[in-house]
């Protein structure tokens, strides 16, 4: 469950009340809300290409998607080769990852983005930090799309552009940019087709597979302050958070007996994770050819795993690792905010 400040919730409530009661709500805001929601009555099929670009490596993923309104979705992966034949089936909050190579299905409960309260808090956080700017319309993959950009209030830079189908309001293409304007990631629909319906058999789980609960990744998630209190050690939070980042989720995970607190911060678009533990531990990043640098007077390791950056250091009591796609500058700001008073 996500935690939001009272101000953010108030903003969300105001936005929704306004949208419901007043037909003249800012059309850009209405469009953004539609793009963030799962359309309740649009079924579709298509191919999605996902590209993440790091400084030293890029990763691409391709999957076929079938969505049956209101809440069944199947993704069938075709690339990279290691994922070819795998698929993910979701029904609302339930997510089933189907792994034919190991003949197993991993079940987990996620946050269904685009529904009710989750949408309200996500939207509030996003609008607190970004402006929505329309930049006209064009034709994309044979469809009329509306071009929308999200401009970061702190940097004044464009962080995301979206091409939104003018009829269905589905985002057909979105690109995320770094602060220097470089493309960081793109998610692109190819050959989307809106269909009247898809047979339920397309969304059936295979039989004869072992069903495993995906608890190993730290779920369930909880409110950060509550999870911090149950960490079992004196966990610390950053003294300040830059550029509108706020804590939104937390959990406790274990690695070979090392109990680790995992906090997730977001500014509505970008996310960064802070891991901390009190037991002797090091980041084994040799294969990533890490760089050494200084954080709060201590030696730190910086490494990149594809598009994801990691920064690890210790203050003598706790061991910290920051993980995200926000760039080294932002990671260092967050690290500096962890300095002991």
């Amino acid at each position, binding site marked *: 469950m996500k935690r939001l400040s009272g101000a953010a919730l108030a903003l969300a409530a105001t936005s929704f009340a306004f949208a419901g009661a007043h037909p003249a709500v800012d059309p850009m805001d209405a469009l953004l809300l539609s793009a*963030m929601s799962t359309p309740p009555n649009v079924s579709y099929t298509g191919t*999605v290409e*996902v590209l*993440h670009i790091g400084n030293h490596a890029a*990763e691409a*993923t391709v999957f076929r998607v079938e969505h049956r309104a209101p809440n069944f979705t199947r993704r069938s*992966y075709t690339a*990279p080769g290691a*994922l070819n034949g*795998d698929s*993910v089936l979701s029904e609302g909050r339930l997510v089933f*990852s189907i792994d034919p190579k190991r003949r197993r299905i*991993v079940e987990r409960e*996620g946050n269904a*983005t685009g529904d009710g309260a*989750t*949408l309200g808090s*996500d*939207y509030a956080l996003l609008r607190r930090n970004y402006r929505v700017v329309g930049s006209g319309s064009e*034709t994309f993959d*044979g*469809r*009329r799309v509306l071009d929308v950009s999200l401009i970061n209030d702190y940097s004044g830079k464009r962080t995301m552009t979206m091409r939104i189908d*003018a*009829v*269905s309001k589905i985002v057909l293409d*979105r690109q995320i940019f770094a602060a220097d304007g470089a493309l960081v990631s793109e*998610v692109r629909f190819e*050959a989307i*087709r*809106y*269909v*009247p*319906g898809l*047979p339920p058999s397309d969304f059936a789980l295979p039989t004869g597979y072992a069903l495993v609960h*995906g608890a190993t*990744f*730290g779920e369930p*998630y909880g409110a950060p302050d509550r999870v911090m209190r149950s960490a079992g050690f004196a966990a610390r939070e950053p003294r300040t958070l830059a550029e509108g980042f706020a804590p*939104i989720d937390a959990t406790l995970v274990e*690695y*070979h*007996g*090392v109990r680790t607190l*995992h906090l*997730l911060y*977001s500014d*509505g678009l970008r*996310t960064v*994770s802070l891991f901390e533990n009190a037991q*002797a*531990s*090091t*980041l*084994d*990043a040799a294969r990533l050819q890490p760089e050494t640098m200084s954080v709060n007077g201590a030696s730190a390791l910086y490494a990149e795993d594809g598009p*994801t950056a*990691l920064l690890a250091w210790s203050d003598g009591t706790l061991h910290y*690792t920051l*993980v995200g796609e926000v760039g080294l500058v932002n990671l260092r700001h967050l690290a500096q905010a962890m300095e002991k008073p």
Partner: protein
Amino acid sequence: MNETHPNIDRIVDYLHGELTAAEDAAMHAHLAGCSSCEELRAEEVAITETLRAHARAGERELPVGLTARIRAAAEGPPQASLWERLRAGLSPALILPAAAAIAIVLYFGFATRHGAPLATAIDPSFYVRNHAAMAASTPFSQDGAPVELTSSDETP
């Protein structure tokens, strides 16, 4: 307003995904605003669903156990288990030295681990995957490879 309506063949082509991308988009937009054509489309969908239901009702499943019997016949007589084959290959002359070697390895392994406490080396993929799993629930998340499918059984 003098709007041209698509004929039923075009609607059927649309339902079967046989229009070009531009035609498909135009048809989708037209149906969204034309109740008479939308009605035609709905009728066509209902007919297709009825035919599909009939086809499904006509499907027959293989008798219970038939698949297993075919597989058993194809595989031939059962083979000795791995343990049975190992037991047959081991003699006391081999077992005693092997047991001694295992005891030595266990002793020195234990002694080494109980020396000075070592820091646990944490693989970066542990952090990256947990980050991806938690961030997946945020709007406009990265939509990359699913965590459950990219993890190995050895990585917690």
